[in-house]
C-alpha cells in the first residue's frame, strides 16, 4: 500500500474523527455533548462522503446500543461523548464486552460529577472507564496527549477492538480534544483496514464463541450460511445460554484473560529522561505535556527528574510503572482528579514516596505546579 502522508493543522476532536475513518469506521451513532460535539458534526458530513452513516440517537444508551448492532452487522462503528454520556453508556459497554463486539467509545473528559463544570476539562473518568459497567471484566483504554496522538491512537483503538473483539475507550480530555496542532495523517495501515478475525472454517460448523488460542473467537456477520449469534446472558461456545458454574467461570476468565494475557503488547508508555531520574513524574493526557515541561525545568535546576507518560491506561502498565518508579526516590503523579491514577501507581510501586498534584477546579495543571511538587519531594 502506498503511504500517502498529508500534513494538516487540526483540532484533536477532528483528528479523532479522521483517525476513525482511516481505521475503516463507517458508522457513528451518538448524542451531542460538549466537549465532544465536533466529532459528531464532522461525522455527519464526512460519513456521507465515505459511504457510511451518521446517526443522531435519542440518548447515549441508544448510541452505544446502535454501534453494537452495527458491529454485529459487520461494520466498524464508534461513538463519542463526555462524562455524563459515558455514564449512560456503561450498561451497553458491558453488553459489548459480554457479546465481544468490537467498537470504539471516545470520551472527551470534562469536569463532574453530574453536569458539573460542563465545558471545563478533567481527567476524572479513569476509574469509570475501568469499572463503570458492572461485573468482573477487562477493558482497554488509551489516553492521547497530543492532536497527533488523537489521530494515531484512534487507529490503534480500532485495531485493538478488532483484535480482541472488545470495546476500546479512547480516554481523551477537553484540553487535547479542543487543542489545535499540526498532524501528519497517514494512509490507513493494512492492519487498521482489516476487520476482525473472519470465520474461515467449514460452513455450517460456525460456533460464535469458540475461541482460538488467543482467547478471541472468530466472527461471521449475519447473512452468511452460518448464523451469527450474540448473547448478553451467560453463554457457551454456541452462543446459547449456559448457566452452569463451570461455564460461567470459563467465560468470565476468558473475557478477562484475552486482554490481560496480552497486556505486554497492549500497554503503551513513553519515557523522557527516566534513565537516571531521582524523581519520576507519572502522568497521562494533556497533563503529560505540563509534566515534560516541569521535568525539563527541574533538570535546569539540577534536579534529576524524568517522565513516564501513560498512553495505555487500561490494562494499567504495571511493568513500566514498576520499572521507572523502582529507580526513583520519589514519584509525582499530577492528574486532574483527586488521585485515581496515584492509587494505581501506589498499588504497583510500594517503595518510593508518592506525591499527587491534584486539580479539580476545571483548569489544567501548569508546569510550575508540577515543578513545585518535584522540588517538594527533595525537602
Amino acid at each position, binding site marked *: 500500500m502506498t503511504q500517502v502522508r498529508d500534513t494538516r493543522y487540526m483540532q484533536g476532536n477532528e483528528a479523532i474523527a479522521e483517525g476513525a475513518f482511516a481505521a475503516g469506521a463507517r458508522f457513528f451513532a451518538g448524542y451531542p455533548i460538549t466537549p465532544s460535539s465536533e466529532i459528531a458534526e464532522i461525522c455527519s458530513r464526512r460519513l456521507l*462522503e*465515505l*459511504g457510511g452513516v451518521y446517526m443522531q440517537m435519542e*440518548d447515549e444508551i441508544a448510541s452505544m*446500543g446502535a454501534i453494537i448492532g452495527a458491529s454485529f452487522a*459487520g461494520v466498524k462503528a464508534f461513538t463519542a461523548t463526555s462524562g455524563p454520556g459515558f455514564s449512560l453508556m456503561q450498561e451497553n459497554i458491558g453488553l459489548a464486552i459480554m457479546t465481544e463486539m468490537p467498537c470504539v467509545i471516545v470520551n472527551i473528559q470534562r469536569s463532574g460529577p453530574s453536569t458539573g463544570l460542563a465545558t471545563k476539562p478533567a481527567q476524572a473518568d479513569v476509574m469509570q472507564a475501568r469499572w463503570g459497567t458492572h461485573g468482573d471484566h477487562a477493558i482497554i483504554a488509551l489516553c492521547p496527549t497530543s492532536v497527533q496522538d488523537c489521530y494515531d491512537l484512534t487507529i490503534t483503538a480500532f485495531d485493538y477492538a478488532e483484535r480482541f473483539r472488545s470495546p476500546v475507550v479512547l480516554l481523551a480530555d477537553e484540553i487535547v480534544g479542543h487543542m489545535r496542532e499540526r498532524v501528519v495523517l497517514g494512509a490507513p495501515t493494512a492492519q487498521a483496514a482489516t476487520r476482525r478475525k473472519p470465520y474461515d472454517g467449514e460452513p455450517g460448523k460456525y460456533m460464535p464463541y469458540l475461541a482460538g488460542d488467543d482467547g478471541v473467537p472468530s466472527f461471521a456477520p449475519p447473512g452468511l450460511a452460518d448464523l451469527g449469534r450474540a448473547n448478553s*446472558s451467560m453463554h457457551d461456545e454456541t452462543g446459547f445460554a449456559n448457566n452452569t458454574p463451570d461455564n460461567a467461570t470459563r467465560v468470565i476468565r476468558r473475557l478477562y484473560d484475552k486482554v490481560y494475557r496480552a497486556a505486554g503488547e497492549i500497554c503503551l508508555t513513553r519515557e523522557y529522561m527516566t534513565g537516571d531520574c531521582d524523581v519520576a513524574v507519572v502522568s497521562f493526557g494533556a497533563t503529560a505535556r505540563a509534566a515534560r515541561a516541569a521535568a525539563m525545568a527541574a533538570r535546569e535546576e539540577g534536579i534529576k527528574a524524568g517522565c513516564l507518560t501513560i498512553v495505555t491506561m487500561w490494562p494499567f502498565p504495571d511493568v513500566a510503572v514498576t520499572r521507572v518508579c523502582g529507580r526513583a526516590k520519589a514519584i509525582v503523579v499530577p492528574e486532574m482528579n483527586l488521585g485515581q491514577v496515584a492509587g494505581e501507581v501506589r498499588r504497583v510501586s510500594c517503595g518510593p514516596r508518592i506525591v499527587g498534584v491534584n486539580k479539580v477546579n476545571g483548569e489544567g495543571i501548569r508546569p510550575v505546579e508540577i515543578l513545585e511538587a518535584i522540588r517538594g519531594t527533595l525537602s
Partner: protein
Amino acid sequence: MTESKAPRGANRAYKRFLLQRALPHFWCPGCGNGVVLGAIVRALASLGLSPSQVVVVTGIGCWGKADDYLNVNALHGTHGRALPLATGVKVNRPDLTVLALMGDGDCATIGGNHLLHSARRNIGVKAIVVNNLNYGMTGGQYSSTTPGDKITSTSPFGDPERGLDIAGVAAVAGANYVARSTVYHAAQTETYIKEAITAPGFGLVEVLSTCPTYFGRLNSMRTAVESMNWLKSAAVTAKAAGGMSPDDLRERIVIGRFCSRTDPDFNQRYEEIRQRARDRGFRTREVVSGR
C-alpha cells in the same frame, strides 16, 4: 391428533425457523408467548425468507428469551435496548429482516424513549411486542401497561398509575405500520406480523397476552383458559370501537390495524440526503454493502 392429519408441504416450512432441539420452552403453562412465537415462524416461512436473512434482537424478560427457540441470527441484548441494537443492525444491513422482540416492560417502560424515536425515525425494524400487562420474569410487578387499579405484586391494592397504549403511541409517533391483536386471535396475529414485515419503515405489532401465573391469578382469572376468555371477550375491533363511548371502551382491548403508511424509511431518507449532498457538489462514495 395423529401426524397424518396435519397438512403437509409449504406450511410445514416454519420448522426451519424453530430450534426444535431447544424445546420444550421454559415459559409457564398457559403463557401466550408460544402462540406469538408460532405466529412469527409461520409468518417468516410464508414470506419465503431464509433463516440467514433474518436477525432477531431481543431484550430482557420472559419474551426476551424467544431468541433461544429461533433458528435465525440473534442478538440478545440489554433490558429495554432491543430497538437501538436493532437500529444499528438495520441501518447497516437494510437487506436483512430485523425483528425486535420485546415485552411491555422492554418496549414501553424502560425502552419507551427508544420506541418513540424508532417510530419517529421510521427505521425499518419490526417490533413484535408481547404485552402481558405486568413484569412476569421478576414476579408480576406492575408495568407501564398495567391497567389502572389492577392488582400486581407491587400494587397489592390496585395500580395507581394508568396503562400506556403502546400501539397508539407508535402510530402517533410516526410508525408506518401499527396493529394490535391478542394471543386468542392467533391467525390474525400472524397476518399482522406478515404485513409489518412487508411494509416499509417501522412496524409494530402489539399482541395482548396471558400471564396466568401472575397477572391472571391476581386479577380473578384463576386459569389460563379464563385469561384467554378474558382476551376473547374484551377484544373489540377498531371499527366497532369507533361507535363506542369512552366508558364502554374502558375495559376493552381494541384490536386491528391502526395505520399502514408507505412513508420512506430512515435508510431511504438517508440515501436521499446523500443524493442531495451529491447534487450540491459533495463528492460521495458509493455505499458498499457490508462496508
